[in-house]
């Protein structure tokens, strides 16, 4: 379970964020005292830090610079300031991503999982039931040879695989596809999933994807 450190001074947001993160299966730690947060941040051994820019005392950008002196923990800047300057500054100080409030919670979770994935050593290709997945080539390789997936099918398959054994909602899948510049509609998503099912079945993985009514899909 990944540990996420919340550095956010607005109490309602902090509470809702930790609920959101806990529901999504993360462990969350919060900073509550902002007089000198740096030692607490550095000793938190978090896998990822969500850092607000407007903080009492020190501003988030300075804080980020201090963090980067001794730690390479991924940092996502979260702010209500919609100015290019803040984004440019944050990225140049070493932030991994920058999200403006109010954010779409699904996107926030997506970005968190993307940053976490990037920070982990991903030299090993993911596998499923003995099939090796090559995202760059867009193909699956197994005993039956090679299966080519379209970009959308690959994106869907990867998302289901990351959450193997738990339900992924249609909304999550849709958000993920749109985040990858695939602006498909509801019908197209259904079509993509049924094609992916057929392809997997032809490849020897029968009933890999199960539909859970009103909830979403699950990869078994």
């Amino acid at each position, binding site marked *: 379970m990944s540990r996420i450190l919340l550095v956010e001074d*607005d109490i309602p*947001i902090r509470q809702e964020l930790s609920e959101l993160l806990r529901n999504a299966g993360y462990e969350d730690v919060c900073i509550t005292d902002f007089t000198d947060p740096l030692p607490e941040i550095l000793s938190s051994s978090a896998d990822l830090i969500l850092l607000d820019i407007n903080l009492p005392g020190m501003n988030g950008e300075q804080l980020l610079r201090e963090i980067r002196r001794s730690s390479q923990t991924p940092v996502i800047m979260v702010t209500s300031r919609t100015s290019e300057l803040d984004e440019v500054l944050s990225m140049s100080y070493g932030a991994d991503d920058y999200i403006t409030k109010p954010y779409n919670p699904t996107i926030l979770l997506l970005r968190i999982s993307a940053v976490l994935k990037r920070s982990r050593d991903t030299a090993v290709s993911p596998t499923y039931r003995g099939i090796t997945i090559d995202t760059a080539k867009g193909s699956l390789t197994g005993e039956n040879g090679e299966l080519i997936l379209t970009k959308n099918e690959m994106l869907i398959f990867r998302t289901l695989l990351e959450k193997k054994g738990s339900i992924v909602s249609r909304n999550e899948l849709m958000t993920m596809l749109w985040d990858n510049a695939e602006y498909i509609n509801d019908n197209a998503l259904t079509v993509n999933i049924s094609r992916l099912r057929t392809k997997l079945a032809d490849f020897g993985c029968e009933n890999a994807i199960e539909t859970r009514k009103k909830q979403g899909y699950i990869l078994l």
Partner: protein
Amino acid sequence: MSFSRFFRDRLPAVCIYTLVSLLTIIFTRASGGDMQGVFMIGIILLAGGISILLWDYLRRSSFYKRLFKALEAADRKYLVSEMVPEPEFADGEALYQIISEACRDMYENVAKQKRISSEFREYIELWVHEIKLPVSSLLLMCHNDGEAGERYALQIRRIDDYIENVLFYARSENAEKDYIIKEVRLQKAFGAVAMKNMEALHERGVSIVTEGLDTNVMTDSKWLEYILGQLLGNSMKYFRPDCEPEISLKAETFPDRTELRFRDNGTGIAASDLPYIFEKSFTGENGRNSSRSTGMGLYIVKSLCDRLGHRISADSEKDSFTEITITFGRNDHIKFED
């Protein structure tokens, strides 16, 4: 100041002088002066009179000429008193004093208004950041509440859109440079906008077609996102009920520019309205048919484009399509290194 106007002004003095001169000549002649002496006195009086007149004319006209020239050249007319030296004749001095005083007062007034408007804008920025906090927590609460919260989330997002309008209106009206031009991938900017409107787009069943958006343009990404958001919002307002809604974005790069064409197949804009759509408070035919039009959206979009140095134009056909084209200049010399 022309000489004839000046001369007319001095006419009484000239008349008195001429009269005095004539009387002097007559009396000199009457009291027994010889003809040659009287003639010499006449010449001297005439020369003296003309030089007084000319000298007076020249020093005045040189001051006023400079003053008018400065006035013409000045970008801000109220700074004109700073641009000419103080004159050395009495009425000129008085005039100069009046102008300086009036200009200084004007300058102070302008500076005060500038300060007020910039403070106001700063406050708006601050206020927007403040109000975004409760909006953010509300959105998170909606999400955490599951399906029941979705209904509220839609309205909260509407509030957020209106907040953005205020922010960008304040930004567009302000003379300060508060944007950063750097390379922005069109895909990234549009992606953020599409994502923000995903639910609404799905609800209306809008299909989105993009082409060539993996191009970089020189702009401020936050401003561009707002601009695209406004265009998208407009398209969403004016879809025709009888056909499948579609929005397409196409970017095309030329040696000197990149053109982004934002097109929808909505109700279109009447030809008579088309030239005015970027004007402040213009609502037109479409606006009259929809109570939700304020005529501010495209005006703000246009001011933002102007300030960023992008050209924006519109083309449309009633009941067929609307196409807004934004032209980004290309200049390979200015590249912002991240």
